[in-house]
């Protein structure tokens, strides 16, 4: 079957989630996607939050994709691309001492 138009898909992994300690998003499969992009929208934030992309071959066991860290310490939207991943993706968030935030986290895949 011909696919003349690329596929795209947006998943809202967290929706107005209040964070006060380190966490990782639920495993999300994108086996069909050639590229992906995370968006983190900080609706409220007090103190530094740091994000890293993690990948997995099976949805059970995880490792960092690369050394890139993405920080946010004021309300707003940040984003970063994800390339050359296995089919499971998630974000690990490190919450600084005493920090907190309210987040929406999106994952966009494109094939």
């Amino acid at each position, binding site marked *: 079957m011909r696919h003349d138009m690329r596929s795209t898909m947006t998943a809202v992994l967290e929706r107005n989630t209040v964070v006060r300690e380190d966490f990782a998003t639920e495993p999300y499969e994108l086996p069909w996607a050639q590229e992906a992009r995370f968006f983190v929208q900080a609706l409220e934030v007090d103190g530094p939050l740091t994000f890293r992309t993690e990948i997995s*071959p*099976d*949805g*059970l066991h995880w490792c960092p994709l690369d050394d890139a860290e993405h920080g946010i310490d004021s309300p707003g939207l940040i984003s970063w691309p994800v390339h050359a991943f296995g089919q499971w993706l998630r974000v690990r968030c490190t919450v600084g001492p005493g920090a907190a935030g309210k987040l929406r986290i999106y994952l966009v895949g494109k094939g």
Partner: protein
Amino acid sequence: MNVNETALSKYNPLPRVLCFDTFDTTTHGWTELLGNYDGRGDLDTVDDHMRDFRPPQLSSCSFFDVGTHGTLSGNYALKLATRPYPGHTATGIRRLTMAGRGRVRIETHFAFKAEATVGHEAPASVAWDGNRHPSEAQFGAFTVATDICSDGGVRYHNVIRYQNTNLDGEMTNRWMYPVVPEPTPRDHQEGKFALPYAADFTAPDPDDWRTFGEPLEMCVNEVPTKINWHYLRWDIDTSTRSNVELQLNDRVMDMRDVPVPLYPDRYGTLDNLLNFYFSVRTHCGIRNFLFLDSILISVDW
């Protein structure tokens, strides 16, 4: 016979096919369900029990032990995955309207599993004996349901649920239906309900569920990473607002006596609503998955 006819041959549709969704190409309109929110886009006003039904995924059904499993007839299935939180539910909903009244049929080939636990034991009422596996008792329930509104705002839900275990994790293997309509955000606003996170959104009180038919054992196949595709066909009738028949593999169950509760009051802005959803609910702290190879919805009007 062309490829599309081959794909269709695993189904038995009524004369008019409304949608035939194969998940090798996108999610085909099956999306996450979200509760309603206020007039200012404030998602904090979504009911606690309806704010986290998780986005569907396109899955190649891959596992830690054998790698990619694939689907009944392709690369990707629509996968609904719960959080590892007792009571948590994941949904996929399809939103249509009706161009007539009469028989409606939804068919799918599906598989269900609890997530594998690797290197540690998790609570289960079934012990491993070389044949049976604890993961068998770590799957809660899956539900197929509708949201229909017609004829001057009369709203109702035809609902079927396969309850694999009860809330204590004991095997039940029963088909069930609720005797009350699903609590709505309007009910909440009117003070009738205020449900906590991970409450059963279809009917929160376990006493509001009844069984029908005999206990039915599915093909679980001994470990959490062997998936077998089950055929499901469910007929309802929107001219009589009733259930008709349910087929699971070779078992056909008459559902004409299974009641469909109406909402006591009327709903606006939903004229001819014809929604379908699949959901999966974990009864323990282990992710539960529902994989849908493809879905076909057909009608006789």
